[in-house]
């Protein structure tokens, strides 16, 4: 479980960090640091395993039937990434403490950062591909929050939206790719997938799978042509950029390339797609970086370029290239994180990031300048620094792969050009910012930052140096295990050393260094040329055009199917249901009636049914006189409850009767605010059309009911009838089904009822309706709002009604009754108090807020279910026993009765919530002109 806890820690920590911010600004930084250390501590006991050649896999069943397990994996590659994520994360936590200003919310920042850290950790430690994807999407979401941290800034919101759209679309493609991969291999476990490389590569679905996965990788790692979101994400606070664009977010893409390298690489498709995209990105990023005047813009495109380099290396497919790729991941993370932090310090202390104004900062901050220059030199690939080593390996690999091919000079030439551009923009970063004359009207006079703000940069720069000077003593073991687990094979022969003698790679490095210096010297004419030509291209324009086009398409489809008229929608729905319902009758030759013998007709039933039919027709006919319609529909409901009595359903009859009362009260209250008469309709054609539909629907349903009722049937009722008493401890089978056999359904249903109540309260909040002072005939309301006789009588009746309710609740398990009915009876009893005595009078004697009732009800019902877990039974298993009470005699106690109590409370709470809030409306002052 240790790996699971390591991933879980930052997620829990996110909440703790947010809480800690209430204690003071520094507290959330301390808490974030502690959370990161805790996550590290969970990993420490397993750290030695990858170095011993063991892959640690921890698995917990989750949905084994679907192949979805909570599965974590710690091997060399995962270890390397976990170290980068947590190590650099810790430095970012420290750095951000000094970077954020007084106005920025510390708690929110660190909370998002922890969420993001947990998601990243989840990606790299996942053994299950679907689980990996979930964390992958979580990084998209949490990076959205981080990029838009300064929500008041337009570019922050736009940048975050663009990043989410691009990486989210990529995540969708990736899901498709993973599902195909799971289909091919038959498992989502990485161990199986990595061992099935040949099976995957020879499968006919290989190309679609590869394409979809690469779409996910390329969007995440900002590969051409999806690179454009990354520069816009620079609107984030610099600590975020330093974290997302060095060690995490964008590295998730190349992590996946490395992770799936054994499973997918080694085919021409892989070679051309991956190295092609990598090369294009490498060149494009390096070229654009040179022309950016914004310090972070330069670093953003440089990041794109270096990601291209890593992608290109993995695309080359040779084991040695993969080793170089892993090595460059480490090196890029260290120098790029420190460069971003340095850029943040400069921005923080000088007030701008524009390199046309930032000049000659050496004089003001020599110490920061030294750090930044070392890191920039590492980025350029200068000897004695870590960037040099991996770049050298990269150059050597491109020579190796091109040797003996026609046109084989092209790849080495292009990567040398990219190297030269890299040197040029690194030079620009150093020379423009720290030398090159004096600053141009800076908002403030720059100076060295606080001591602790420099510490993270120092640590990273020292790492660049020691890795660059003595690679074998420092990074070699980590690189070896990470590379070996990337390849899932023995490592190729390679030597980490500064000096390999004079070889083609060294020559390429020298050409790149010299060429870069030359390009930088020629920058002025180059800048002028760029401004005139390519500088005008902006990928955002294309993205926005695409996005707007997509929105327009969505809107036109919506307009096509949604006409904005409920009346028409309902018509289409009913017509469609009719067609679908009638079609099978026309097709099949089955007779309408079956041969089951029916019950004989009796006079009482005939009279009741006639009353119901007449009342229904009256409701339809008189629906414009709304009060009359309400009376007639009440008659319908009454006869329906009589039908339940007649056909052996006492529980239903009781429920229907009490629901009938609350429904009528509800509709009466609503009618108060609605017109009491409606104007007649003027469209006979529509009336005829609706009449036809209604007749067809009615006839169809009647025919269906007739067809069913005249046929014999099988039922599962026997089980319930047989097990109700021995299994559920109750003789009222309907109630036992509700609270025991199908208790889970009931829990869902009372939740729906609670939600309906809450939704109604939300809708009524702030609602103001003009209450008419007289009825439609012009008569004013009775001055005696609360008649004395009614008030007195209802007060006497209340305890009686409550007694009945308690009785009904208690006997419900064995006799008709139960939580639903008791709840409704209680509601009616209380509502009557409101009606007879007024809300003010009632609230003096009773809590006005029924939210707690609903909450308690749901909690009791849920806890009765959970309690059975304590005894090792499935959710909502019930138990019962018989107690001998003095005076009362033998009394049965069932856990299902507690559940029924929960049902009771929810029904009372929700009903009161609905009716009392609706009734309270008319006391709100009417708003002028709100109703015509």
């Amino acid at each position, binding site marked *: 479980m240790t790996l699971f806890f390591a991933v879980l820690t930052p997620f829990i920590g996110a909440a703790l960090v947010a809480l800690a911010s209430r204690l003071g600004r520094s507290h959330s930084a301390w808490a974030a640091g502690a959370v990161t250390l805790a996550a590290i501590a969970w990993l420490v006991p397993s750290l030695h395993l990858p170095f011993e050649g063991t892959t640690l896999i921890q698995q917990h069943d989750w949905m084994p039937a679907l192949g979805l397990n909570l599965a974590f994996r710690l091997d060399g590659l995962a270890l390397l990434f976990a170290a980068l994520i947590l190590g650099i994360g810790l430095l970012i936590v420290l750095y951000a403490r000094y970077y954020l200003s007084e106005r920025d919310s510390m708690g929110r920042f660190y909370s998002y950062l922890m969420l993001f850290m947990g998601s990243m950790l989840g990606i790299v430690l996942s053994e299950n591909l679907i689980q990996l994807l979930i964390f992958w999407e979580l990084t998209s979401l949490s990076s959205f929050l981080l990029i838009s941290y300064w929500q008041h800034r337009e570019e922050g919101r736009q940048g975050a939206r663009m990043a989410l759209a691009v990486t989210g679309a990529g995540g969708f493609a990736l899901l498709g790719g993973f599902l195909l991969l799971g289909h091919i291999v038959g498992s989502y476990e990485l161990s199986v997938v990595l061992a099935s490389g040949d099976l995957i590569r020879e499968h006919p679905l290989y190309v679609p799978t590869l394409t979809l996965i690469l779409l996910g990788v390329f969007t995440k790692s900002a590969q051409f042509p999806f690179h454009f979101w990354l520069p816009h994400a620079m609107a984030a606070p610099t600590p975020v950029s330093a974290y997302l664009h060095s060690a995490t977010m964008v590295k998730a893409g190349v992590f996946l390339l490395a992770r799936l390298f054994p499973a997918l690489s080694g085919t021409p498709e892989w070679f051309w797609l991956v190295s092609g995209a990598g090369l294009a990105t490498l060149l494009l990023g390096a070229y654009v970086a040179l022309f950016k005047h914004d310090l972070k813009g330069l670093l953003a495109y440089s990041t794109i370029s270096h990601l291209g380099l890593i992608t290109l290396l993995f695309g080359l497919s040779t084991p040695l290239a993969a080793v170089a790729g892993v090595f460059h991941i480490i090196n890029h993370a260290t120098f790029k994180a420190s460069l971003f932090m340095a850029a943040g310090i400069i921005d923080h202390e000088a007030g701008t990031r524009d390199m046309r104004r930032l000049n000659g900062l050496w004089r003001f901050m020599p110490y920061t300048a030294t750090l930044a220059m070392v890191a920039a030199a590492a980025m350029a690939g200068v000897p004695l620094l870590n960037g040099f080593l991996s770049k050298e390996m990269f150059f050597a690999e491109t020579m190796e792969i091109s040797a003996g091919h026609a046109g084989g000079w092209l790849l080495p030439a292009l990567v040398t050009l990219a190297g030269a551009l890299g040197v040029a923009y690194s030079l620009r970063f150093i020379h423009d910012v720290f030398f090159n004359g004096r600053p141009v009207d800076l908002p403030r006079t720059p100076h060295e930052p606080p001591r602790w703000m420099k510490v993270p940069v120092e640590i990273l720069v020292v790492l660049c140096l020691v890795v660059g000077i003595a690679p074998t003593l420092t990074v070699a073991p980590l690189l070896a295990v990470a590379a070996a687990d990337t390849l899932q094979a023995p490592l190729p022969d390679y030597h980490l050393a500064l000096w390999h003698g004079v070889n083609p790679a060294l020559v390429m490095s020298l050409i790149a260094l010299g060429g870069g210096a030359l390009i930088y010297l020629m920058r002025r004419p180059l800048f002028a040329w760029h401004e005139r030509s390519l500088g005008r291209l902006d990928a955002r324009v294309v993205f926005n055009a695409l996005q707007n086009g997509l929105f327009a398409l969505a809107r036109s489809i919506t307009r096509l199917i949604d006409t904005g008229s*409920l009346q028409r929608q309902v*018509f289409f729905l009913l017509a469609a249901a009719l067609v679908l319902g009638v079609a099978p009758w026309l097709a099949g030759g089955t007779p309408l009636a079956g041969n089951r013998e029916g019950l004989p007709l009796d006079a009482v039933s005939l009279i009741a049914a006639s009353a119901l039919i007449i009342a229904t027709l009256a409701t339809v006919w008189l629906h414009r006189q709304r009060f009359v319609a309400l009376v007639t529909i009440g008659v319908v409901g009454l006869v*329906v409850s009589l039908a339940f009595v007649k056909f052996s359903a006492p529980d239903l009859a009781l429920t229907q009767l009490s629901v009938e009362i609350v429904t009528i009260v509800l509709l009466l209250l609503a009618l108060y605010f609605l017109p009491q008469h409606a104007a007649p309709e003027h469209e006979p054609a529509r009336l005829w059309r609706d009449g036809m539909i209604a007749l067809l629907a009615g006839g169809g349903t009647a025919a269906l009911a007739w067809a069913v009722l005249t046929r014999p049937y099988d039922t599962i009722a026997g089980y319930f009838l047989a097990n109700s008493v021995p299994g559920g401890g109750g003789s009222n089978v309907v109630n036992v089904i509700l609270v025991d056999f199908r208790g889970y359904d009931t829990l869902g249903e009372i939740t729906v009822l609670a939600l309906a109540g809450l939704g109604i309260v939300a809708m009524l909040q702030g609602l103001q309706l003009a209450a008419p002072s007289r009825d439609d005939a012009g008569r004013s309301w009775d001055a005696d709002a609360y008649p004395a006789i009614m008030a007195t009588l209802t007060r006497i009746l209340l305890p009686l009604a409550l007694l009945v309710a308690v009785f009904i609740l208690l006997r419900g398990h064995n006799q008709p009754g139960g939580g639903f009915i008791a709840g409704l009876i209680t509601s009616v009893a209380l509502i009557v108090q409101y009606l007879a005595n007024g809300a003010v009078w009632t609230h003096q004697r009773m809590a006005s807020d029924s939210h707690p009732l609903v909450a308690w009800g749901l909690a009791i019902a849920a806890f009765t279910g959970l309690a059975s877990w304590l005894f090792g039974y499935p959710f909502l298993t019930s138990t019962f026993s018989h107690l001998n009470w003095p005076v009362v005699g033998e009394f049965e106690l069932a856990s299902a009765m507690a559940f029924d109590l929960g049902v009771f409370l929810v029904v009372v709470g929700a009903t009161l919530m609905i009716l009392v809030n609706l009734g309270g409306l008319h006391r709100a002052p009417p708003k002028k002109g709100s109703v015509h």
Partner: protein
Amino acid sequence: MEALIALVIGVLTAGGVFLALRGQTFPVVLGLTLMSYAVNLFLFVMGRLAIGLPPVISDAAAGYTDPLPQALVLTAIVISFGMTAFVIVLALKARAELGNDHVDGRHHDEERHA
């Protein structure tokens, strides 16, 4: 008896459908109420008709009717109440926001000219 019940269900459905197609909110709510009567009855009689056989276990009982449709319908009745309440409050909200009680938020005279 079965034919009578089928007829009742049919009449309730027809009335419910006709009212649900009206343009103003109140008749639509009435229509939905009628329809839920119809649907509840329909579901209930799926257990076939039985007289004097309530599903309450006792030694004296001659037999029991099917309890399962009853359990389903019981919660359906309560949920229909919740739904009716939600819809009618939605109608009130619409009247406050839009100034009329048409389901499409239009005035009656607008409808005539449309």
